[in-house]
């Protein structure tokens, strides 16, 4: 039966290839869109959950989150380091990570922080910098790769991209991060002291020690809210006696806001997928109609020589089943392949796509497409095979 089904399929290979392509494109795009949008959402949320709160100068919450977690926006401004010192003495806090972003190295951003900021990141070569030292750097995978840097090399950062604006003081590379397909691959991390040192030694106006933001892990969500309430809107004395107004935010809330905007885009993608799916059904129906004449002749012929309706149904169900299974498996494979290509793009958002991640709804989509795709032919076959042979 299977052998005959395969031979019969070989005869109709052009139509079958069209059906398979149609299913692969529609199901593949649908599954890919769903998977990527969910993995990105999950990834962003997961990153945002790492810290309980972020404190920074007042301004856009989104900008503060995007700057401190994905390095994709400019800092909102600066605030005195004394806030860090106060938080470190706060018994409700587990971890305080200061964050400053200034200068660049060949276009790659330079972040001044503590080694705690790199918790969970793995080192490819060398080691993390020593928080008590200065002028040491751990560089992202791409920074090392595209600048030919190794552990022990010295880099010179600059205030801007303008030539001649480079700091005279060099920073020694002590470690290189493993590739993470995230924005961490494109950053130079150094001690806060290094950034302060650069600016103090080059005749700049004397600054007290300043930072751009503070990432805080509170002991529990309750105290996190307390701290947010205490610091949000708080006025403190900044550089040159200028008051700085602080904002304290829960990263998850800010991310939810970002994702809400992204959801609109997601819905557009889903609508497009639905349109493709409808087109898929139409294409398959048209192909089925074109096959009707051929199939009806074939079924009549088999009935005339005495092959039972049950066997004919089984034959076509096997054929349609093979088409459906091959198509949906191919659609799934193509969607995973596309994930691989999309990884670099979404890594800018600090998310690494997991090739093996399969959402239950993806399986539902694939099953739905499978059923929709084989249904017209199966119904037609059942109707045909039930007609008497003489018709």
């Amino acid at each position, binding site marked *: *039966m299977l*052998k*005959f089904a395969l*031979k*019969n399929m070989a*005869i109709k290979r052009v139509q079958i290839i069209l059906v398979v392509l149609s299913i692969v494109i529609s199901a593949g795009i649908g599954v890919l869109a769903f998977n990527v949008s969910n993995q990105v959402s999950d990834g962003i949320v997961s990153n945002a959950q790492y810290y309980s709160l972020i404190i920074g100068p007042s301004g856009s919450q989104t900008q503060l989150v995007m700057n401190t977690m994905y390095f994709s926006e400019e800092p909102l401004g600066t605030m005195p380091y004394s806030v860090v010192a106060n938080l470190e003495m706060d018994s409700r806090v587990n971890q305080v990570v200061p964050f400053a972003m200034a200068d660049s190295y060949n276009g790659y951003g330079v972040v001044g922080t503590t080694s705690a900021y790199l918790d969970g990141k793995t080192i490819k070569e060398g080691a993390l910098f020593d928080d008590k030292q200065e002028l040491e750097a751990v560089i992202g995978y791409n920074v090392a790769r595209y600048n030919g840097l190794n552990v022990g090399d010295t880099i010179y950062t600059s205030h801007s991209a303008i030539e001649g604006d480079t700091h005279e003081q060099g920073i020694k590379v002590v470690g290189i991060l493993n590739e993470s397909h995230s924005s961490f691959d494109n950053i130079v991390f150094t001690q806060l002291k290094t950034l302060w040192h650069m600016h103090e030694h080059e005749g700049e106006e004397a600054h007290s020690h300043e930072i751009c933001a503070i990432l805080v892990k509170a002991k529990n969500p309750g105290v996190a809210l307390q701290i947010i309430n205490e610091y949000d809107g708080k006025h403190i004395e900044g550089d040159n006696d200028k008051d700085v107004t602080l904002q304290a935010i829960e990263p998850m809330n800010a991310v939810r806001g970002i994702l809400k905007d992204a959801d609109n885009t997601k819905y557009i993608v889903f609508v497009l997928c639905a349109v493709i799916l409808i087109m898929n059904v139409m294409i398959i129906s048209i192909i089925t109609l074109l096959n009707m004449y051929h199939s009806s002749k*074939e079924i009549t*012929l*088999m*009935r*005339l*020589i*005495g*092959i*039972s*309706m*049950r*066997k004919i149904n089984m*034959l076509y169900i096997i054929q349609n089943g093979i088409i459906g299974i091959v198509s949906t498996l191919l659609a799934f494979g193509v969607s995973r392949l596309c994930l691989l290509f999309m990884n670099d793009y979404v890594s800018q958002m600090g998310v690494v796509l997991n090739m093996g991640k399969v959402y239950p709804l993806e399986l539902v989509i694939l099953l739905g497409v499978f059923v929709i795709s084989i249904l017209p032919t199966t119904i037609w076959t059942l109707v045909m095979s039930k007609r*008497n*042979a*003489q018709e």
Partner: protein
Amino acid sequence: MIEIKNVTKEFQNETAIDYKDMVFENSKSYMLLGASGCGKSTLLNLIAGIMAPTTGSIVIDGKRMEELSQRERDKFRIEKIGYIFQDFKLIEEMSVIDNINILNIEGIDTQGAPKLLEELGILDKKNAKIKHLSGGQKQRVAIVRALVKSPEIILADEPTGNLNFAIGEQVIKELVKASQGKTLIAVTHDERLSKYFDFVIDMNEITSGKRDVVSEEGTKKC
């Protein structure tokens, strides 16, 4: 033995054929002669269980066909009857052997096909697609498909209809030879072929086939 008893067949366009009672003996060959529309092919379809009579009975080896279910009639047809259709009923895009092996779907053993193909002189076409064969070759494939399951009854509807006389005669000779020991009922227009059959039934003598009639006892070959 095939018995036709008080059989009539009505069609949707209100034409009808009445068959007189007749009997086809086992292991004999019968030739049905007659003009188009007089009910020759219908009779074959009734015997094969493809059609059901409107009234009357067709009894084969004591079994009343009208009492069988559709599934039983299918089973009977695939196991006991080899039917050679006028238009061959072959899948054009498939090879000769695949057209015969289609019977495997119902568990029919087709291992004897190469021998039959050889006997009919088309073994070398075993893997050729039907669409690349001549009419005579296609007819031989249809014969092999009908005979490969060693049926007890062979029905042949105009087996020479698409062939010239020389090839048609050759096909009939081969068919009769291959049907030794089986009941063969063949429909044909060509009286010249009657010498190869045990009996000839001239259905023309009875009516036009449209209401009132058809058929009489088999006329012994002259």
